[in-house]
């Protein structure tokens, strides 16, 4: 092991880093670039104090080392899970360590597997067409609420077998949780008044007592090490699936729509050559990093990159910084639709890698195939769009008004063909 050098290249240096600062969204790229060069293992005193990692290789190493860097969330201990500041409630198996996290994940993964997603594609395509039908003749819509919120929400609720007509209520709850994280993590009134937690509990109990042929029944009745999990634990796992399903994909969709509206040459290239869709999706994942960062807790005192870290130290892994690290990505601040290789960390790395990644990619592809086919000249006035109050957890948008040349509905044609 090399000794820490004096100066700035190694050693845990103090940083004034606040991912919730009002000007953070516009400055984040510049801040991360500077930290990567001068202070890759930094210590911020905010939110109880935490160490921030910004280099691609360092984050990859920490994410793969579950023994040193724990994801556990136990509110009675210094192990406070994957967000800084911690949420009041636990987010299921993403806030456990192996082997528990792996065992719990097994109850969910089959619902989101590549094969399961392939089986859902036809239904998802109709869902996208129906959503676009609602506004295609008007020449305007709000892309955030009518497409980016709706498609992932309805798809996720379908996977679970939950009532589809309530999708807007679920979206509002989870968007709020991540879009103003400081408030949602501190406001007890917010947590206590929330009927959505009660609703999740009711659905979980119902599936436990009256299992049926749906994803939630499968989730709550799959034994973990031979035993059924508690109702409370099952609700936590459900909230994780909903959070991942509803919020992160919406952020990927809105950010892509805005980028393509502002970069019509790239949009035209994608429209004309659909073989670019797969690499383009990965590039937008890299460029926007819908989940900006996740936290860990150091289990025992250790030395990482020559820097001593105390036991119980909170550590923030910035996927957003890693995904713009010039040592890993050539020209990192430019979108290259055909970028290769593109080993981005947008879905995380290691055993906690996003379980819904296959579904998210399919949703992105089906939405933009339809958009490019049906309203390829959309434009968005950035000044009219409303971003999340903070992007520290998830860089989404509440509203994104869009205009385009009106088109025709496809639903009646589809029904006639049947």
């Amino acid at each position, binding site marked *: 092991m090399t000794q820490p050098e004096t100066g700035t290249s190694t050693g845990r240096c103090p940083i004034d880093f606040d991912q919730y600062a009002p000007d953070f969204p516009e400055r984040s790229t510049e801040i991360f670039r500077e930290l990567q060069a001068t202070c890759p293992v930094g210590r911020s005193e905010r939110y109880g104090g935490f160490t921030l990692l910004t280099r691609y290789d360092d984050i*990859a190493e920490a994410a*793969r080392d579950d023994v040193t860097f724990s994801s556990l969330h136990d509110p009675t201990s210094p192990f406070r899970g994957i967000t800084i500041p911690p949420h009041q409630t636990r987010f299921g198996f993403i806030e456990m360590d192996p082997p528990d996290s792996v065992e719990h*994940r097994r109850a969910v*993964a*089959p619902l989101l*597997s*590549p*094969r399961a997603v392939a089986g859902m594609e036809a239904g998802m395509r109709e869902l996208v067409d129906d959503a676009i039908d609602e506004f295609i003749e008007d020449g305007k819509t709000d892309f955030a609420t009518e497409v980016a919120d709706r498609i992932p929400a309805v798809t996720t609720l379908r996977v679970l077998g939950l009532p589809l007509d309530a999708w807007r209520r679920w979206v509002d709850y989870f968007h709020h949780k991540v879009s103003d994280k400081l408030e949602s993590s501190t406001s007890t009134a917010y947590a206590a008044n929330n009927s959505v937690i009660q609703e999740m509990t009711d659905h979980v109990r119902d599936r436990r007592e009256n299992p049926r042929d749906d994803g939630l029944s499968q989730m709550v009745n799959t034994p973990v090490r031979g035993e059924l999990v508690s109702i409370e634990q099952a609700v936590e796992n459900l909230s994780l699936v909903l959070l991942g399903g509803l919020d992160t994909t919406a952020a990927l969709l809105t950010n892509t729509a805005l980028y393509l509206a502002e970069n019509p040459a790239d949009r035209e290239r994608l429209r004309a050559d659909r073989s670019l869709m*797969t690499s383009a999706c*990965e590039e937008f994942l890299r460029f926007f990093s819908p989940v900006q960062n996740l936290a860990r807790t150091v289990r025992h005192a250790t030395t990482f990159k020559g820097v001593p870290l105390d036991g119980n130290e909170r550590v923030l892994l910035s996927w957003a910084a890693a995904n713009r690290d010039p040592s890993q990505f050539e020209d990192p601040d430019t979108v290259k639709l055909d970028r*290769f*290789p*593109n*080993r*981005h*960390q947008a*879905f995380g*790395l*290691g*055993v906690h*890698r996003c*379980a819904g*990644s*296959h579904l998210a990619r399919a949703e992105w592809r089906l939405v933009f195939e339809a958009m490019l086919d049906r309203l390829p000249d959309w434009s968005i006035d950035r000044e009219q769009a409303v971003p999340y109050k903070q992007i520290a957890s998830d860089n989404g948008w509440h509203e994104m008004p869009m205009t385009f040349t009106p088109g025709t509905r496809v639903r009646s044609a589809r029904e006639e063909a049947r």
Partner: protein
Amino acid sequence: MKVFVDAERCQGHARCAVESEELFDLDVDGCAIVLQEIVPPELEEAALRARTACPEQAIVIEP
């Protein structure tokens, strides 16, 4: 050329199957299953690209 997947490292990013569906299938969590351990000459380039594409460095190639 032979191709293997290090099951300890693979986390189901599914990026290898994008490079070659002839070489890689995906299990229930998206983890890679090698379909042809001995890589036919026409798939050698795809095997090398899959190794490069993998964010977990889970693909091992032997000449």
